[in-house]
């Protein structure tokens, strides 16, 4: 059991209800929610009282994979993580922060790039992925090569085409900074800035980036109904897409080949990690939340619209030894979809957009 106060402060002037974390059966995770009564002196001077600001996991989401007991979220930890996420010090020349490729307004992807661009405008091999609902993933990156969120930052930091830095030098820069040692001490009790504290602070920020306030979520919670078009789209989606894009997060977290023509021949997908032939050109099934903001689509950002994605599933699926069997079962390769079914699916997918997520000032990074 841990008793971190999962509380943040938020000005009550902010629009009530725009904070999008739903409550969970708290006991399930053994989180004790403490309502902070006292504010710091400056805040007391403020005529508007602070609204307590609670981090809760959405009640309709599955059990998180991330072990919060090993890294209890605190307001200070979250804020430190956010500061690190926006800090160019994590890169060789100070120019590239995590937020360079993960922009809140694009649901934390790099707007306008198929393949993310890093330091000196060098091009990476893949499309930037959204930072959303990461507590529910059991591997990270399109190929799942990184098995713990805490370990993820090492990859962009050391990648010569992303931040081109190394972890010891980042730690050195933070230790020599006038603010960081104090901020780390507040969260981790020591100002020595250990590797694990640095990584866990970044995780705290990223874990708080939960998107769970789409129309579809409100529908699931019985708070709003879907239109007829959207309901029909949902039914088609459940029949034709949800064997891979399953559950409330639209992913079964597996690696599959959905029949894209091979783009970059060097990008072997999951095979780069497992080196097994059966994993060639397989990529992690992505969540389909916030597609309005995350385009372009697929691991290499090849499609700029959902129409193109659906045309791929109906007419573009390429045969190969690792093509998923769910796409070979029908009368012809791929998924049979009429034009009207496609537009209904797109109607449904739009209910997965969560505008409160990308405008939430608490997690806004740039």
């Amino acid at each position, binding site marked *: 059991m841990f008793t971190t106060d999962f509380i943040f402060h938020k000005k009550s002037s902010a629009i009530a209800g725009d904070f999008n974390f739903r409550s969970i059966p708290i006991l399930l995770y053994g989180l004790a929610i403490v309502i902070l009564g006292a504010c710091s002196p400056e805040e007391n001077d403020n005529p508007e009282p602070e609204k307590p600001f609670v981090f809760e996991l959405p009640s309709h989401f599955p059990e998180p994979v991330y072990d919060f007991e*090993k890294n209890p979220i605190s307001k200070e930890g979250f804020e430190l993580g956010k500061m690190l996420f926006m800090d160019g010090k994590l890169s060789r020349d100070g120019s590239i922060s995590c937020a360079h490729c993960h922009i809140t307004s694009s649901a934390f992807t790099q707007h306008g790039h198929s393949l993310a661009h890093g330091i000196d405008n060098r091009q990476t091999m893949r499309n930037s992925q959204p930072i959303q609902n990461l507590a529910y993933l*059991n591997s990270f990156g399109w190929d799942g090569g*990184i098995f713990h969120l805490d*370990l993820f930052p090492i990859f962009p930091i050391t990648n010569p085409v992303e931040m*081109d830095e190394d972890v*010891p030098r980042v730690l050195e820069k933070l230790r020599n900074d006038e603010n960081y040692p104090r901020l780390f001490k507040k969260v981790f009790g020591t100002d020595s800035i250990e590797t694990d504290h640095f990584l*866990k602070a970044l995780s705290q920020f990223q874990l708080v980036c939960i998107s769970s306030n789409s129309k579809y979520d409100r529908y699931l919670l019985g708070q709003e109904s879907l239109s007829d078009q959207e309901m029909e789209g949902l039914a088609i989606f459940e029949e034709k897409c949800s064997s891979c894009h399953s559950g409330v997060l639209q992913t079964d977290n597996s690696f599959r080949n959905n029949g894209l023509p091979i783009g970059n021949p060097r990008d072997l997908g999951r095979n*780069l990690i497992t*080196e*097994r032939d059966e994993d060639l050109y397989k990529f992690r099934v992505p969540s389909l939340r916030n597609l309005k903001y995350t385009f372009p689509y697929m691991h290499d950002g090849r499609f700029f619209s959902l129409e193109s994605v659906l045309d791929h599933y109906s007419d573009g699926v390429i045969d190969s030894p690792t093509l998923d069997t769910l796409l070979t079962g029908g009368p012809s390769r791929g998924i049979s979809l009429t034009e009207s079914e496609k537009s209904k699916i797109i109607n449904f997918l739009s209910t997965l957009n969560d505008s409160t997520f990308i405008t939430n000032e608490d997690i806004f990074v740039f």
Partner: protein
Amino acid sequence: MNFKNNSLIGLVIGSRQIIKNIFIAMIGMSMLIACNNDDGTDTPAPTPKGSLRLDFDAFAGSDDLVMNSSYTNASGETFKVTMFQYYVSNIKLIKEDGSDYAVPVGAEEGYYLVKEDRTITLQDIPAGDYTAIEFMLGVDSTRSTMDPSERKGDLDIGDPETGAEMYWSWNSGYIFMKFEGVAEAVPDSTEGAWVQDSLDQWYFDTTQYTYWNDIYNIHVGGFGGYDTPTPNNTRHIHLHMHGGNTIQVRKNEEPEVHIAVDALKVMDGSVNHSFAEFYQEHSPSRTGDIADNMQHMFTVHHVHN
């Protein structure tokens, strides 16, 4: 780490997990015994403890390995070595009667990066005469999959001298062994070049069409995979003392065990690798026989008691 994945790891490495658990239980028991002894009333006299130094001396055949000097491999290629380092862990000291003492492993201890000018000092070893040493070459899967707060000391990914140099960021896991240098036999590249950036980091630049600069980087790693079984390139090494020699651990003494490590055996062994075909190796599936070769590179040279 989480429960779902834990159980998956459990499936993959079940037997090791059991061994590990027994091992932890043993450490626990030995700690209990130590505690009992500390109150020193009517319990038997405490087992005296001593320390021990392990000196891994890099050799090239029968001579000391000298960085940047020329050697020849079994394929007749000359090469120079610029880096040779590896992890040693899960060390066990064994007595004639088969009983053993396992050096504890934990967040801060039990994993050692062996490189030039570094010796391993083991503390608090029960006094006695030991006739064999066992250790793992590499980092076990249990530790490899723990969260970063459980990997400090030489496994600290932020330590410039150790962990930071020995980690695959894109395919989470430690590099167990790095063998790097130059060899003329390394073919010229037609599709890009290894170049150094302003911070002397090597990276492969596909926009440059120069040469490999004769560079070879042989990196062995792979702990067996997190949720998909992949090659496990950890290896167990068992070294027996020759000619009735023993390591005599005593209170207030520090015996030194000199282990000769023949770097030429990295490339030459049951499989002789040629730098013409084997020079940029960063994948667990291609380096298993290097790990096999390495099993044979250790011998006890001598012991100072």
